[in-house]
């Protein structure tokens, strides 16, 4: 019981121990450090901005290259089909002697 009363008394004293606390002093160089940090942040931001610009340019180049390759491939494919189609028609006309018949008319 006595122990509890003593603990309560000490607890009260501890609670009051910071009642008249004095403000602690701040480091004199705090402003210079803040300024340095702001400058470093700005430089870091510029670096990140430049990096993302490079990445964006690279991605755009890749997309353009893929487009060019695709267009070239499609054009080649179509030309190949036309040749094949023409040769098919020629073979058909040869088989039935259509060329000669046409000349006859």
């Amino acid at each position, binding site marked *: 019981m006595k*122990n*509890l009363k*003593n*603990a*309560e008394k*000490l*607890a*009260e*004293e*501890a*609670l009051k*121990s*910071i*009642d*008249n*606390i*004095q*403000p*602690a*002093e*701040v*480091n004199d160089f*705090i*402003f210079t*450090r*803040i*300024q340095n*940090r*702001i400058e470093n*942040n700005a430089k870091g931001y510029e670096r990140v901005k430049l990096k993302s610009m490079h990445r964006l340019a690279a991605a755009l180049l890749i997309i353009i290259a893929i487009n060019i390759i695709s267009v070239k491939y499609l054009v080649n494919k179509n030309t190949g089909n036309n040749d094949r189609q023409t040769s098919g028609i020629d073979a058909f006309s040869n088989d039935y002697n259509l060329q000669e018949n046409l000349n006859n008319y």
Partner: protein
Amino acid sequence: MNDQELIIAITAGDQKAFRLLVDTYKKSVYNTLLGFLQNIENAEEVTQDVFVKVYETIGSFKNESKLSTWIYRISVNQALDFIRKTKRKKRFGIITYLFGNDNEVLHQPANFEHPGIVLENKEKAAILFSAVNSLPDKQKTAFLLQKIEQCSQQKIAEIMQLNEGAVESLLSRAKTNLKKQLINYYSA
């Protein structure tokens, strides 16, 4: 220079105005952070973070509250973020704390000596600061703003964006919890 003029000047890149702002509020910011972080180096580092954030976001400051209230709010948020990050790091590191049932920190070494406390109270204050660490964030914020910064209940309510009744309740619960913990400490 009033708050409004100060904000306009800083937004325009006036370094003298920013220096004036730092000089005006550095003591409040540092002492608030010292109460939360209980470490001089960490408090200095987070003070820098607070002012960098103020500088970078002052353009978005709306005059819905006082500049001092806004700076206190940033300080409290930065302090709580720092504590959360440190706890997360410690969780993955070597366990140096004794945990209770709710994974709540029950005991931390009572070794923080606030430079603004008279010698005869240093030991008791260190025990109190250790107990403050285990309070929930809102109770801790209300208690520290009142005790360290001598903020009124109205000011605390503005900083925490609560009504005064809620702040009164937080302060009362904080004191009850602290008293319980301190009695346990002294009776052990």
